[in-house]
């Protein structure tokens, strides 16, 4: 089949007429042909690939015929009509079945039919069984009729095209219907042309209501269309769509937040807007919910009474709530963002000393230490006034990294005041209770003992109940007073040396009666040694723990008190085998009135204040009390107190003492030099030989080498030569101390770092000492240390105190033998601190103190009382006086310097 035939067949098939029923519009044509040309047979044939199909036929019942060698197949070959007057005379058709057999056709006339595209798809033809000639007019008629039939064919073609379009539209419609989002098309004037069901649903219209709607009807009244128009007017076909958020109008009148996506198209030269719309109601509600939440959080921040600051990793404020500003004394408009929180408001400790950022708990939070909570510091407001705060810093962690911190703080000035008032109230009430209680207890005791005459059995029992209840009440009042006094700081520590075994023995003795009654053995495992504590308080702490341990032990059990010495602390463990403490109680057990079982107070006679007292005492000592307990197996309370003062430093400088290496083969002279140098604040190491000097230098890195030239093994030259090879020592200063006169060559061989020479004169060590001090940077000024004034009427005590303080501490000491002399010296010398004996003739300690405090020039000079045990009864009175601490007499000269440093916070 050639290409033309292919196109002809497609044109034929697209008519959609093959194998369809007869149609009147075609039959009308064939009937007219039959009548006008006077032929018995007229047909409209369609020439298919291999057959002849009759769309309309008159005078025959056949519906189709074999295509081969038919008249019509011939007729469609040309645009001209085909006329055959007698088929028997025409070789092309003489043998055809229709000619030789029924219906025995003899004459034929046919005109090709063209489809709209010009293809000849079939014929209008007439047949006659008699030979006949067709006139030119007859053929013209037939031709006119063929044009009519062609008109009918065109209509078929149109119908087919419409059907195809309907199918396309159907698919499009199905697609539109299936799209969950609203899709609509408007014309250039805003009239709705088409909308899908989703669109109808979105706006609340039935499908029969949408015709004639305009864009205005679909938008809320206040939508400024004019504002949208410019954006839409500029839109051209093919541009990216415009996206808008507008409020739509629902058919019911409601408002619908929608997002519309508008694109422009041109259809047959007309503008069309294709609009997709999405309902934003849910999204907007979610947005509103988020906004509301944000606003609420904002309100919480705004309304919080606590100051809340957010800071970045460098400590700079990124937000601060109004309370923070108020507490800082700032107005709302004062800039705070970017201000360094620590440097501006937390730069000093409560005592005014600098508070380095690296020591701030917030710094630790920012560097991975987690949340920190501090109860006893101050912030400084914008006017430089301190206010007591409790604050907490919590890290802000994003993706595992600390990106900042939130610092929350409260002004606790008022709360502190209330706490103080409460404590004072407790103290006063307890004091007032104690006196009548004493007489009640005394009277009841007399009654119960029968001293006032025999009692009846019931009365006796009642009296005993009254006695034991009163005893409990007395204990409670005493404990309340103790706790209040310790916690309020009214009880000052009176540190003094106490033997550890003595402490343990005294504590055991205090609970001896109780242990015996309970049938519990108290076993002591002391260690040798002295601990520097307030003996009375520490005794109370241990005794409290022991009495608890005994209370909760069964008859026949033992309680162990085990002391252990550690590098810088002493621990005392009190171990019982009682019922133990449940895990959930272990944290609370040190709080007041937190007994494991509320019946304990009655049955075991506890006040619920014993452990809080213990904890307070230990905290005051810089120690701690901890608990390990296994329910059912017993408890171990461990007291730990620090024993070693920190590394000694040159006072006021905070730097370590310089180290001097004395290289001297005369052991006696080396020792003399060492002792005299140490007295001046220098640490000394000694080397007797060349080899030990080199080894020692490598280990201790001396700040100065005092070098003798002549040694029993090796010599000074060897030492210098060896050290020159070590970069770390090649610049070490050297003081050559020799009995020989050296020449220049010898001197140059002894040069290391800055090198000086001093001749041994045998006239004492003073020139050497001065030289050494100058070379290590401790001139006379630096060497002086803090100046103390000791006022004691016993000159011997003054002597020992001076010795102890000057030898074992970085102090220079003056002594005064009376209050008057002390006052005079204090005003004259302005010492850094004063040690004041309490009991002196004429002007005693408290009176001297009053006079000292009356001198403006001496304001801020701390005073320590030296007080004998006998005056412990006066402690209450002494403790209320403005002193920085007390030192018990007799004091231990070996620890006096350290104690003074500790009490005065000079570490």
């Amino acid at each position, binding site marked *: 089949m050639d290409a033309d035939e292919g196109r002809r067949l497609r044109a034929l098939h697209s008519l959609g007429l093959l194998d369809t029923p007869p149609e009147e519009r075609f039959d009308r044509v064939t009937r007219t042909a039959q009548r006008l040309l006077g032929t018995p047979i007229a047909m409209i044939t369609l020439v298919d690939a291999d057959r002849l199909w009759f769309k309309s036929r008159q005078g025959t019942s056949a519906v189709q015929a074999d295509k081969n060698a038919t008249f019509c197949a011939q007729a469609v070959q040309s645009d001209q009509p085909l006329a055959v007057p007698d088929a028997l005379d025409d070789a092309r058709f003489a043998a055809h079945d229709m000619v030789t057999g029924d219906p025995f056709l003899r004459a034929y006339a046919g005109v090709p039919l063209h489809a709209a595209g010009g293809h000849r798809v079939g014929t209008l033809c007439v047949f006659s069984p008699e030979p006949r000639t067709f006139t030119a007019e007859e053929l013209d008629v037939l031709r006119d009729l063929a044009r009519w039939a062609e008109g009918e064919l065109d209509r078929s073609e149109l119908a087919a095209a419409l059907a195809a379009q309907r199918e396309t539209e159907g698919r499009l419609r199905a697609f539109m219907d299936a799209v969950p989002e609203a899709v609509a098309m408007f014309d250039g004037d805003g009239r709705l042309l088409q909308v899908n069901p989703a669109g109808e649903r979105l706006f609340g219209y039935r499908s029969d209501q949408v015709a004639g709607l305009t864009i205005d009807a679909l938008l809320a009244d206040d939508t400024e269309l004019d504002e949208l128009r410019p954006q839409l007017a500029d839109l051209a076909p093919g541009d990216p769509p415009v996206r808008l958020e507008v409020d739509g109008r629902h058919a019911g009148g409601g408002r619908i937040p929608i997002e519309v996506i508008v694109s422009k198209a041109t259809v047959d030269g007309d503008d069309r807007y294709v609009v997709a719309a999405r309902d934003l109601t849910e999204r907007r509600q979610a947005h509103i919910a988020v906004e509301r939440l944000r606003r609420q959080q904002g309100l919480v921040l705004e309304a919080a009474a606590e100051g809340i600051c957010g800071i970045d990793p460098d400590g700079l404020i990124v937000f601060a709530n109004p309370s923070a500003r108020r507490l800082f004394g700032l107005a709302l408009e004062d800039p705070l963002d970017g201000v360094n929180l620590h440097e501006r408001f937390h730069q000093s400790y409560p005592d005014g000393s600098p508070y380095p950022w690296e020591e701030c708990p917030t710094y630790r939070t920012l560097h991975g230490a987690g949340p920190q909570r501090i109860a006893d510091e101050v912030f400084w407001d914008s006017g430089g006034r301190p206010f007591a705060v409790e604050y907490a810093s919590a890290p802000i962690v994003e993706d595992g990294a600390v990106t900042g911190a939130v610092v929350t703080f409260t002004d606790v000035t008022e709360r502190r005041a209330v706490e103080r008032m409460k404590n004072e109230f407790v103290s006063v009430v307890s004091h007032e209770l104690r006196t009548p209680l004493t007489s009640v207890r005394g009277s009841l005791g007399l009654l119960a003992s029968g001293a006032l005459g025999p009692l009846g059995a019931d009365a006796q029992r009642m009296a005993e109940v009254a006695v034991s209840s009163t005893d409990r009440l007395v204990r409670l009042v005493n404990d309340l007073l103790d706790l209040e006094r310790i916690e309020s700081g009214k009880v000052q520590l009176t540190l003094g040396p106490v033997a550890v075994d003595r402490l343990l023995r005294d504590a055991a003795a205090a609970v001896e009666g109780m242990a015996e009654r309970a049938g519990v053995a108290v076993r002591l495992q002391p260690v040798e*040694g*002295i601990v520097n504590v307030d003996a009375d308080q520490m005794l109370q702490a241990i005794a409290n723990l022991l009495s608890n341990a005994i209370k909760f032990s069964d008859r026949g059990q033992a309680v162990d008190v085990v002391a252990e010495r550690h590098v810088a602390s002493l621990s005392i463990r009190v171990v019982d085998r009682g019922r133990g403490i449940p895990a959930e109680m272990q944290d609370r057990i040190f709080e007041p009135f937190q007994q494991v079982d509320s019946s304990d107070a009655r049955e075991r006679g506890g006040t619920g204040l014993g452990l809080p007292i213990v904890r307070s005492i230990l905290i005051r000592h810089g120690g701690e009390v901890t608990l390990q307990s296994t329910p059912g197996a017993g408890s171990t309370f461990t007291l730990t107190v620090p*024993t*070693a003062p920190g590394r000694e430093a040159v006072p006021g400088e905070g730097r370590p003492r310089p180290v001097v290496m004395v290289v001297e083969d005369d052991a006696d002279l080396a*020792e003399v030099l*060492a*002792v005299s140098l*140490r007295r001046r604040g220098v*640490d*000394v*190491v*000694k080397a007797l030989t060349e080899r030990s000097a080199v080894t020692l230098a490598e280990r201790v890195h001396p700040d100065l080498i005092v070098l003798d030239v002549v040694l029993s093994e090796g010599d000074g030259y060897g030492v210098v030569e060896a050290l020159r090879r070590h970069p770390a020592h090649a610049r070490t200063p050297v003081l050559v101390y020799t009995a020989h006169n050296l020449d220049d060559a010898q001197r140059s061989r002894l040069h290391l770092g800055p090198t000086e020479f001093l001749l041994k004169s045998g006239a004492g060590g003073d020139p050497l000492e001065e030289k050494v001090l100058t070379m290590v940077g401790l001139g006379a000024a630096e060497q002086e240390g803090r100046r103390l004034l000791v006022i004691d*009427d*016993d*000159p*011997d*005590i003054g*002597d*020992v105190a001076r*010795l*102890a303080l000057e*030898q*074992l501490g970085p102090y220079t000491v003056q002594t005064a033998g009376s209050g008057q002399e002390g006052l005079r010296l204090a005003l004259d010398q302005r010492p850094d601190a004063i040690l004041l004996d309490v*009991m002196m*003739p004429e002007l005693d300690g408290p009176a001297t103190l009053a006079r000292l405090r009356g001198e403006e020039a001496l304001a801020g000079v701390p005073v320590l009382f030296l007080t*004998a*045990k*006998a005056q412990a009864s006066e402690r209450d009175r002494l403790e209320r006086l403005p002193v920085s601490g007390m030192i018990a*007499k*007799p*004091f*231990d*000269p*070996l620890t006096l310097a350290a104690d003074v440093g500790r009490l005065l916070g000079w570490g």
Partner: protein
Amino acid sequence: MGVTEPGGQSREDRSRELLRQVWLRNRPTTMERLSVVQSALEAMAAGNLDAGPRLAARDEAHKLRGILGTYGFAEGSELAAEAEELLEGDGAGAGGLAARLAGYAGTLPTE
């Protein structure tokens, strides 16, 4: 405690030595005080100690108690405390204490 310095002798040892020297230097005043207290106690035992000297002696005893304890003489400090208490009270046992003090004074180191 007992940190031994590179010098071989601990700071404490050295300080004890210095304390001993202070004691030796001040020994006479302490011995004199001891004898004042001792005489007062004897007078008290004999019933002829007036209030003035008694209070003066009590103050001496108080000082003795402090200084003896400070030098590390615990027994002496306790004896002095007893004397202080006794001189404040009715004087019972004054004679015995005077004798104990006399005996104790002889045991104090002289070098």
